[in-house]
């Protein structure tokens, strides 16, 4: 069987990529995609720990399922916001959306 820490390293790598994307990308949709990457990395962690440490309990899978739901809700609302901003301000660049910035 594949050692547990291999999965965890893959998840850590994905999470780091996601962090970089959130901090560095300018396009709001790209930022949202990076957030999806981070959520996926978390899911991989949950499932890997479930498989190795508690395969007979349901917690790991159940948590992953709720992460899925939250990710979907977040994507739906986030993308709707982006579309709305685009229609009002003709931009999806995160830095240019600064009306509320003090």
């Amino acid at each position, binding site marked *: *069987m*594949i050692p*547990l*820490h291999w*999965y*965890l*390293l*893959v998840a*850590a*790598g*994905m*999470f*780091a*990529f*996601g*962090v*970089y*994307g959130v*901090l*560095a*990308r*300018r*396009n709001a*949709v*790209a930022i949202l*995609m*990076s957030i999806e*990457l981070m959520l*996926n990395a978390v*899911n991989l962690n949950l*499932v*890997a720990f*479930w*498989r*190795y*440490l508690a*395969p*007979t309990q*349901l917690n790991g899978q*159940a948590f*992953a*399922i*709720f992460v*899925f739901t939250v*990710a*979907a*809700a977040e*994507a*739906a*609302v986030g993308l*709707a916001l*982006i*579309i709305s901003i*685009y*229609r009002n301000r*003709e*931009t*999806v*660049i995160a*830095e240019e959306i600064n009306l509320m910035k003090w």
Partner: protein
Amino acid sequence: MAFTPVTFVFLLMSAFALGGSLGVVINRNLIHAAMFLMLALFGMAGLFILLEASFLAAVQILVYIGAISVLITITIMVTRRIMGTTESVNKQWPLAAIVAAMIAGTLGFVLLGRFQNVEPVGAVPDTYIAEMGKALVSHQGYLLPFEVASVLLLAALIGSIVVARE
């Protein structure tokens, strides 16, 4: 550790997941970034299968690739007009890269220190999907999160319809 077909599949799927993630964050063309996202999600589904969470793997493909990616692609196409001409990263990208590398380094350090040589404690029961179904609707299980999830979805739908259609 012997190099088995399983190892090969694991390496391939990890390459999909990591390469796809890299593509998402560095690609200038947003549509290509979305395609890389699909690749990453697909790799993730493969890893779920290796972890014997086949239900989550199917859901991953159905929900993430079949629905969320489609939603993201449509949003990119709807908001396309000024895309592709601007810089893909902002001025603070070196800092972001350092932060990301530090997070990766810290996580890797902790993981390698703590979770090497962990053996799986048992096999996955065959009936875990049915068990999950029962747990979702029982007091001892996840009845409250289950119902709250449906309300969350309702709220997300109402919110995004209101926001997207003004």
